[in-house]
């Protein structure tokens, strides 16, 4: 490296290693199939695997954004998957009842309905955790289980197919040749970033997650903050639910958002936010989500047999963690470069008395 200082600053940046893995994975794909990175223009919009990755990661990014805030307060939200299913189901149900499924007004009402219910359910989570004081994992587990049931209740166990242009656009529409979904995710990310970093919310969340007791004594109403993050998480999940259902123009109460909570938590953790709470990184989370989606796409693109794909995922996940872990790199580098020899005796004056 020509400039060792800049190089150091780069490699010690906390997002450096996830980026390396992401680039490595894309490179591996390109080696496997040289056309992987190519992006063409088709029907007035961009078409290619990269675009797919962006579009498909949009819902995960959304869910993970909300999850980041929850985790930063030291909590966890297992119910996001079910919330995705519920919001999507409500929106689709409402639209399917409309005489004109293509009416923008109807779709907007449907979105408002879905979002509204999700907010109520998020508030429910928030109350359980912040007011009643139930451990987050178990408080949100309730809605994870029951919410799935609710979603299926709404769709009556069927896959609810709709035929609504405006709604479909949320999932597969395009804006400026790129998928609309990615703009939505980006907008949400900017919004969350603005709300947390332009105001003091981020600091307060980190403080509550870092030391709840100290925060209380500093005059922070940690209950309200905790409540708020669960509501935000639910809102993010709701929008993600719209995207998931719009992507296939149908609401599947059972499958929509299944296991997305695990992926979201994984994205947050890969992004460098600790599950113990405290400091959070929205950029890291987005990167984590992109990484996970790239991994999934890689499995399909390289046609890794479904029987071994989980092994492949396991290897990549552990590789990402290891390469990111300072502890691992330290061991690795130390072995290669043994500690420098003894230093010359320091020259400062010393006073010594006989013992």
């Amino acid at each position, binding site marked *: 490296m020509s400039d060792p200082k800049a190089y150091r600053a780069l490699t010690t940046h906390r997002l450096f290693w996830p980026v390396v893995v992401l680039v490595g994975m894309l490179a591996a794909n390109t080696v496997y199939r040289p056309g992987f990175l190519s992006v063409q223009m088709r029907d007035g919009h961009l078409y290619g695997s990269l675009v797919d990755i962006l579009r498909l990661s949009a819902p995960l990014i959304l869910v993970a954004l909300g999850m980041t805030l929850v985790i930063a307060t030291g909590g966890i939200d*297992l119910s996001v998957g079910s919330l995705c299913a519920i919001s999507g189901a409500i929106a689709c149900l409402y639209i399917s009842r409309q005489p004109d499924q293509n009416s923008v007004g109807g779709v907007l009402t449907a979105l408002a309905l879905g979002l509204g219910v999700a907010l109520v359910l998020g508030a429910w989570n928030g109350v359980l955790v912040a007011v*009643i*004081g*139930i*451990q987050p*994992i*178990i*408080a949100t*587990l*309730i*809605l*994870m*289980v*029951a*919410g*799935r*049931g*609710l*979603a*299926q*209740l709404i769709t009556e*166990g069927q896959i609810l197919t709709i035929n609504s242009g405006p709604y479909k656009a949320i999932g597969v529409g395009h804006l400026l040749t790129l998928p609309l979904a990615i703009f939505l995710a980006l907008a949400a990310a900017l919004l969350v970033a603005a709300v947390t970093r332009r105001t003091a919310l981020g600091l307060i969340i980190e403080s509550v997650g870092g030391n709840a007791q100290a925060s209380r004594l500093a005059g922070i109403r940690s209950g309200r903050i905790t409540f708020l993050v669960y509501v935000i998480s639910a809102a993010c999940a709701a929008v993600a639910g719209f995207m998931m259902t719009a992507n296939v123009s149908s609401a599947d*109460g059972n499958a929509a958002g299944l296991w997305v909570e*695990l992926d979201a*938590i*994984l994205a947050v*953790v*890969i992004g460098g936010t*600790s*599950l*113990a709470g405290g400091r959070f990184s929205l950029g890291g989370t987005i990167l984590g989500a992109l990484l996970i989606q790239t991994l999934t796409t890689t499995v399909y693109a390289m046609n890794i047999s*479904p*029987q*071994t*794909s*989980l*092994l*492949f*995922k*396991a*290897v990549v*996940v*552990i590789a990402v*963690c*290891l390469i*990111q*872990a*300072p*502890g*691992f790199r330290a*061991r690795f580098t130390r072995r290669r470069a043994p500690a420098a020899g003894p230093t010359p005796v320091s020259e400062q004056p010393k006073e010594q008395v006989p013992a």
Partner: protein
Amino acid sequence: MTTLSLLAARTRSRLPRRHVPVLATLVLLLVLYGVGVSQYRAFSNIQVVFNVFIDNGFLLVVAVGMTFVILTGGIDLSVGSVVAMTAMVSAFLLREGLPAALVLIIALLIGPTLGFLMGCVIHFFDIQPFIVTLAGMFFARGMCTFISGSSIPITDGFWTRMSQQRIGNPSGNFVSISVLIAFAVVAVAAYTLAYTRLGRNVYAIGGNSQSALLMGLPVGRTRIAVYTISGLCAAIGGILLSFYTLSGAPLIGVGMELDVIAAVVIGGTVLTGGSGYVFGTVLGVLVLGVIQTLITFDGSLNSWWTKIVIGGLLFAFILLQRLIGIRYK
């Protein structure tokens, strides 16, 4: 005299405080059972209780292992998959014609080995347990489908005997051998936590791992040990599951880790570590089991109402547990 009564008063007021969560859980469990008895005639049959144990023996064993991990403030997401992998490997090896004893040894070694490796990664490289054990979960599940895409039946004589042996009155009320094994595991675990250094170190690390380190406790060794123990318990659970189903199926136990964590937490163990009991975990497993039994006995719920009612019962239970806890604080 005065000192004595003072002392008595102090013990009386202190003893319950530590045990209130567990006692509350026990009482609520009995209430739940009472509801079942009052609603359904066959519920009072003692075999129903035995069945809860028979049907949840493996879950209990796995939950005991998870209790160790959660007590240190960690988490082990791999258990469901390790259970499946153990059953799958056993079934596969038995089909290949290996003797039962050898299969048993191999199967019981895989889980702890994986747990040990995960523990090492968590400790030496300082990576969050969630992500390491998630990778372990992918790995173990991947091994399942890698071994076979479809389920493998077990016809081995030993396995069949273990599976179908009824202890008690074979035509009346009985339990399976698995239940005895599960109880043995619970007893050993409870003893380990209460009376061995390892057990006390587990609590210390859960309380404050930094302090534990400065107090000169073997933090690394203990941490690796708990993941190994969890792996061992998952392996035993896997064997019990293979007794239970007499087969290895690649998709069995999907999502079991959540049930297990839920059982442990319902049993009063705090997810951040440092406080909880194995006995609480037993109660947690029973709560989940009784809720499920209640729903089967009802038999009128469709698929989605089943989920909603499970969630609802869970909510009612946890809310009451919490309110009682606050009251006695």
